[in-house]
């Protein structure tokens, strides 16, 4: 069963908060990881690994560059999650 979009956003916000210290309420679908949320390319790898674990999803390295906004990541996770 696919994950609920709101639940994924909430979980992703917690991950970004843990890694970059951004308040969870600021992690919105239209925000860019690098430009708005202080997540550089190294921290993005941490976000991806944490998201894979939390949402039981595989995010291949090739796919990471396409995840520019929080919305991109939420959509990918909702579409590909196994849980």
């Amino acid at each position, binding site marked *: 069963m696919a994950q609920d979009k709101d639940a994924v956003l909430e979980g992703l916000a917690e991950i970004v908060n843990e*890694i970059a*210290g951004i308040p969870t309420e600021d992690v919105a679908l239209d925000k860019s990881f690098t430009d708005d949320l202080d997540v550089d390319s*190294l*921290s993005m790898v941490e976000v991806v*690994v944490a998201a894979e674990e939390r949402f039981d999803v595989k995010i291949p390295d090739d796919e990471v560059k396409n995840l520019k906004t929080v919305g991109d990541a939420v959509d990918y996770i909702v579409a590909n999650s196994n849980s």
Partner: protein
Amino acid sequence: MTTENRTVVVTGIGAFTPLGGDAASTWEGLLAGRSGVRALEEEWAADLPVRIAARTAVEPGEVLPRPLARKLDRSAQFALIAAREAWADAGFTTAATAEGSPIAPERLGSVIASGIGGVTTLLDQYDVLKEQGVRKVSPHTVPMLMPNSPSANVGIEVGARAGVHTPVSACASGAEAIGYAIEMIRSGRADVVVAGGTEAAIHPLPIVAFSNMMAMSKNNDEPQRASRPYDKARDGFVLGEGAGVVVLESAEHAARRGARVYCEAVGQGLSSDAHHIAQPEPTGSGVARALAHLLESTGLDKAEVVHVNAHATSTPQGDVAEIKALRKELGEHLDHVAISATKSMTGHLLGGAGGIETVATVLALHHRQAPPTINVEDLDDEVAADIVRFEPRELPAGQIAALNNSFGFGGHNVVLAFRTV
């Protein structure tokens, strides 16, 4: 000698040490003769031959925000905290890259050294790899473990674009960094340099490795009495951690912006032993040559030298060799020099030692007080010099100078000199 010999002064200090979370509390601890050495309570320490160390008085995680701290090795955390203090103490309120900064970024450098670098990151991440697999190794591992990381992070913090450097010479690293920074300013390459040393190596592997070299004190039952330079019962050094950082500045630049000046950074003397990879040269000739180089290259009059913050790590051989070297070069004048071994209180910070001991030396001149050496209950007969014991000692009025010695495995000898202005 450089063609453009500009006078260099110290305008800011910062420290994060086993005695306190800043320079003021560290200085207070030194004057009070307080030991920062404790029994290691960590589970991993239980079966080690050495179960004592001097941890920082404050945890860096209590000072730095978590998202920043988790991207920095502990050694870089220490350096960043001490550098921020020194930078603010020098009167700077923004990074050099900010608009209206009194220092241009192209005229600002950072030279912070560490003896071992991010050793705990390296070892911890190897544990992660073995126990949790490839995917869980932090992508920050390389920028955390590289030995230039503290210097680079401080350079980014203050906006240093004249050069970021990291000389590595084991336990002389911090002093070599400060010497390098002095030369950067004297040669005209920079007007201001943030310089110092940091170390965070309290981890079972470095402890066992040093211990197997027979270099460490095993006085586990009396942690606060274990680091005892010059005492007959000394049996090796006690590992400490932390950082000491100073802001060095050309005298002209400091005067132009009306900066408070602690003292002059006169210069450095350098030499190498070519003797043994881990043993001090027993006659102290290498150290004596470093001191001779200092006096010759700076023109410092040895009669002005009234205080030495000695390297004195509490090892049987090294402490004596250093005194022999001082006697060789200073002759009878050594009898008028107050010698302090602050490692008796802070433990040995390896590459951080030159940093915090420079801060101590600068403050000794500034307050005209030499900190005590604790635990010298039975002075070694071979130590024929005036060791400041038990209580701090007032230093004379007038123009006075002080030395800070640091030596490292590999036979690196660094003597730094500072003078009142």
